[in-house]
């Protein structure tokens, strides 16, 4: 009997360990790149370290303990870190990290697009967060053995859930997991509220929308988080799949022919105004122009994978459906 019990116990232990490691693996995967946010909110905070994260270049980052000298080269990540109250672990941010106030006035700024490797290395960071790999930055930092977390803003952060995944991961990395879960919970509740309200709208009533990124008609395709906003708001994005391009340039006549009922301008900061759009030759034939359904949105809140993406969703919900969302 005894050997049998021992064997059984051993088998159970092994199975248990296997289960444990399985669930842990699944869990870490879910936090970083989940398609569905619901499992995230249900999971209680775990002892985090080591935290592993898949990078956009296919490599894996392992963080053994909470970093104390983070350089954020991603304005979105900067906003998340501030929202988690983990800004004390930042040693520098990139010069486009201008929100919140603390990031705007951050004493140490580096350039994310022409990054000076020496300047970055001199700050002795224990983690660098990168959103786009310009000029082989990631490889150079790897060579210098500087830990890099690289989640490509165009390729790997395309939905609200991806943004929530970023929040969860940065929470785990900076040892503010509980706070990250709270933040995700409140953000997804706000998103949920809009989604529920939108369920009442029949999909055939969905207006089409043209999202403008600049005055030469660059737009955002369905496969971006801008596209995700329009999916939630049941708006048909005229840029479609962008011909496989995340941010395609549309032909002017295609915009006029699509006859969008809503136009959203994310380029007001560059001088495009509602008035100037109305004055464009030929645009008078567009329903959105005739009905004054042109809305401007702060490009910083709609183009950054940070907590304020939900602000963008709420603002557009109010703009597009004023009766529904007061």
């Amino acid at each position, binding site marked *: 009997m005894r050997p049998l019990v021992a064997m059984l116990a051993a088998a159970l232990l092994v199975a248990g360990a296997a289960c444990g490691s399985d669930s842990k693996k699944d869990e870490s995967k879910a936090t970083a790149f989940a398609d569905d946010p619901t499992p995230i909110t249900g999971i209680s905070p775990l002892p985090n370290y080591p935290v592993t994260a898949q990078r956009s270049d296919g490599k894996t980052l392992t963080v053994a303990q909470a970093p104390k000298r983070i350089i954020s080269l991603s304005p979105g990540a900067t906003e998340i870190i501030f929202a988690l109250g983990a800004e004390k672990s930042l040693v520098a941010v990139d010069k486009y990290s201008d929100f919140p106030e603390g990031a705007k006035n951050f004493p140490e700024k580096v350039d994310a697009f022409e990054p000076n490797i020496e300047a970055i290395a001199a700050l002795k960071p224990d983690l660098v967060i990168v959103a786009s790999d310009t000029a082989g930055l990631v490889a150079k930092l790897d060579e210098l053995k500087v830990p890099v977390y690289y989640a490509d803003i165009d390729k790997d952060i395309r939905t609200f859930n991806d943004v929530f995944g970023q929040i969860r991961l940065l929470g785990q990395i900076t040892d503010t997991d509980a706070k990250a879960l709270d933040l995700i919970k409140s953000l997804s509740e706000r998103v949920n509220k809009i989604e529920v309200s939108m369920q009442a709208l029949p999909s055939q009533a969905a207006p089409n929308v043209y999202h403008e990124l*600049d005055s030469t008609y660059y737009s955002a395709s369905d496969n971006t988080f801008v596209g995700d906003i329009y999916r939630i708001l049941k708006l048909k994005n005229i840029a479609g799949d962008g011909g496989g391009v995340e941010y395609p340039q*549309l*032909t002017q*006549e295609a915009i006029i022919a699509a*006859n969008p009922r809503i136009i959203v301008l994310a380029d007001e900061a*560059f*001088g495009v105004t509602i008035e*100037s759009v109305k004055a464009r030759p030929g645009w008078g*034939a567009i329903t959105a122009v005739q009905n004054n359904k042109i809305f401007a949105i702060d490009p910083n809140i709609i183009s950054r994978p940070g907590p304020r993406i939900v602000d963008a969703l709420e603002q557009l919900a109010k703009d597009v459906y004023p009766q529904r969302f007061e």
Partner: protein
Amino acid sequence: MQLARPRSARRPAAATGDPALVTWSNLAPTYALAALATLAVALFAISWGTVHIAPPTTLGILAGHLPFVSTGEHSATADAIIWQVRAPRVVLAGLVGATLAFSGAAYQGVFRNPLAEPYLLGVASGAAVGATLILISPMLVAAWVFSPLPPAAFAGALIAVAAAYTLARVNRRVATTSLILSGVAVSSVCTSLVTYLMLMYNTRTLAILNWILGGFNTASWEKVAIGAPYMIVAGALILPYARLLNVMQLDEDEARQLGVNVERVKLIILALASLATAAAVAVSGLIGFVGLVVPHTVRMIWGPDYRRVLPLSGFVGAAFLILADVVARSIDPGYEVPIGVVTALVGTPFFLYLLRRQSRPAFGAA
């Protein structure tokens, strides 16, 4: 029969392009034919697009915008697409193509150098500096209505050429070699400046790059109105110098002996060609290839007589850029492909084919 003899003697001369024996009136049918062909290409391009609008409707809408013609009611969307979007787009592409090719031919004639092209003296990079300064400026100026972008690019182009000219001027004389070198130098300085500004203001990098790549997606009648006067007037003023350019190809001394102030003529042609190119760049960005290769193509097909090369370069350049733009907006309907990519990818193989096929030297006064 006696009358027929000189005519038949003249015909081979016209065919080989011996400048001495061809008169302007001989060339009239060639011009007319080229103009008709270009017009046909333009009409085709206006009736071709992402949105299918039947050619009769297209022609009806176009005719309806002529004075004193009424062709009935058309849908507002079709009218906007044909008249406000496609027509100015095609006309602007035609004007820019004509200007770049015409100016390229003029530059090649003045410098007697096969690599001469209208951007040689810094027009393009100077314009890029002007446009970049506007694009990064904190003033809210990107709106295309009364945009300061074309005037700034125009000013930048003219300043760059003036700088190149001034730098090359030694002892009140400007040698063409010095002019080429100072043009290259000014271009490099401008290009580095643009690169630096792009990196400094990297939220505007895409906008700057987009402007530099050039294209006609934002074409409007306003842009046509801004650019056309310079392009047309400069072309009309250069054309009478075609004979002189022919003589200068053979022997500048001979031209001098004929009492021609060669240096002055060169300066006038370069100034006019630069002015026209600056206007073209200001409304369309930097579109390569056309100004270099179209004149060579024309020369290979119709011979080196500048009374042919100049106007035919204009027509062929117009038709070529109009068609390149059709390709740019048709590869992936609804989305744009940069036109510079098209001009190079479509044009280069054709040019190489011509270069290999023909026995006549690619450049020179036959």
